[in-house]
């Protein structure tokens, strides 16, 4: 977790409170990835946003078919825990955001769509949105891994962001900013998810430019994306 620090803060000055961005890592990473590979702390400081970086290992931010209940942990327990312990965080939907890359882009989309009463904005970087592809077209050695996460068949109402986006009532829709590099293997499903959101009339923007599925791209994009989160410079 990173908290913005007051540059010239001394005792007696009034309390500062910050909105919260829950920022999710990708496959093979853990909670340390964003800290190690980007300048997230500086961006948090620039925009006065607290950033909470949890880990759900390789669990795709789901309540796994066989495994841990990661979705419940991230969606319900983590926000409750941080608000219990920290007095410097703003509460409420308009001050709660999600973001993530790759697997974490999927996770952030699920949080924004399934808990849209809790989160108002989502930053989705190079997300992996097509769960059917993961489950049914995975290489042989990966089949069991994805079945452990999603079960035998996709449960569209809890696992498929395309389906969830269709169903979500208009007044609860989050604002979404999507990014994907043109040399990213996930480009096609990013375009498809964006077109779906656009067709459904979501407040969504999509930026596609030269870039790959790598940290150069994510560092640059998280930097510009955080300008949209309502903090002030």
């Amino acid at each position, binding site marked *: 977790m990173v908290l913005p620090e007051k540059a010239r*803060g001394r005792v007696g000055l009034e*309390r500062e409170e910050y909105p919260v961005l829950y920022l999710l890592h990708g496959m093979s990473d853990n909670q340390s990835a964003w800290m190690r590979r980007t300048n997230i702390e500086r961006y948090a400081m620039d925009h006065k946003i607290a950033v909470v970086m949890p880990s759900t290992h390789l669990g795709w931010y789901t309540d796994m078919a066989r495994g841990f209940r990661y979705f419940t942990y991230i969606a319900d327990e983590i926000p409750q*825990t941080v608000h219990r312990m*920290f*007095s410097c965080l703003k509460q409420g939907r308009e001050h709660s955001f999600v973001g993530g890359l790759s697997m974490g882009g999927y996770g952030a989309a699920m949080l924004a769509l399934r808990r849209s009463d809790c989160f108002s904005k989502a930053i989705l970087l190079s997300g992996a949105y097509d769960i059917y592809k993961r489950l049914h077209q995975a290489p042989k050695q990966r089949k069991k891994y994805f079945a452990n996460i999603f079960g035998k068949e996709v449960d569209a109402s809890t696992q498929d962001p395309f389906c969830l986006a269709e169903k979500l009532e208009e007044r609860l829709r989050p604002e979404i900013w999507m990014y994907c590099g043109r040399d990213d293997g996930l480009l096609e499903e990013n375009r498809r998810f964006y077109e779906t959101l656009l067709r459904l009339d979501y407040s969504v923007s999509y930026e596609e430019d030269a870039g790959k599925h790598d940290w150069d791209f994510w560092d640059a994009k998280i930097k510009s994306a955080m300008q949209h989160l309502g903090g002030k410079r």
Partner: protein
Amino acid sequence: MAWIQMTSFSEVLGMDVDLNVCLPNSAFDKGENMLLASMYLLHGAQGNCDDFIRRTGIERYAKENNIAVVMPSGYLSAYQDMAFGSNVYSYISEELIGQMPKIFRIPFGREQQIIAGISMGGRGALLIGLKRPDLFSKIACFSCGIDMQTNLIPWDLIRTETDNADFDIRQIARNIDKEHLPEIYMQIGKDDMFLESARESQKFLKKIYGEKGRFFYGESDGGHDWDFWDRAIRGYIDSLQLPKRNDLY
């Protein structure tokens, strides 16, 4: 129970400092904050903010008694503003104490703030607690004395022959407002190398506190080591018998 390892910039010290916080988050289970006190716990010479986490069961004792424990790093300062070095006294008393409740939902204000420590940190707790009785209602110091003759503490960097008045514990104690004496709990092992120093301090403080003041002194089995401090800290926290929440508010 949460153990928070934190790095935060200190304006006073002009650098990033490490600290640990033990925060029993089960205290929030009923939808309101049931924490009863915040203890600022100071490490000894040679140590840093990790000492109590590594060498005692502080997290359990904090949870059992519903208190938050903040463990800062005081380096080799004796918790003074050093003659040649960092202003650690000012950092703890002016910056840290104000900063913690702004970040964490922990109790604050004199009646709910305790300062405690071992060895150099015990002396530091005595110093800070007596110098700022407006911040702390209780001082707990273990295995220390006002005069600690040891080369483990670099006194030559901390104070000069001529300029020590601001941090002279005896002077501070003599001038303290007798109406607002913080309660002092002092304990030391019978085999501790600072036993004589502790006894002298007891005599001196007893005089200041008189019959009315709440000053407690105890000697028990043990040396200048973590066996003793683990037991002593636990015993002290248990003995606080913090009031039920209803009595507090």
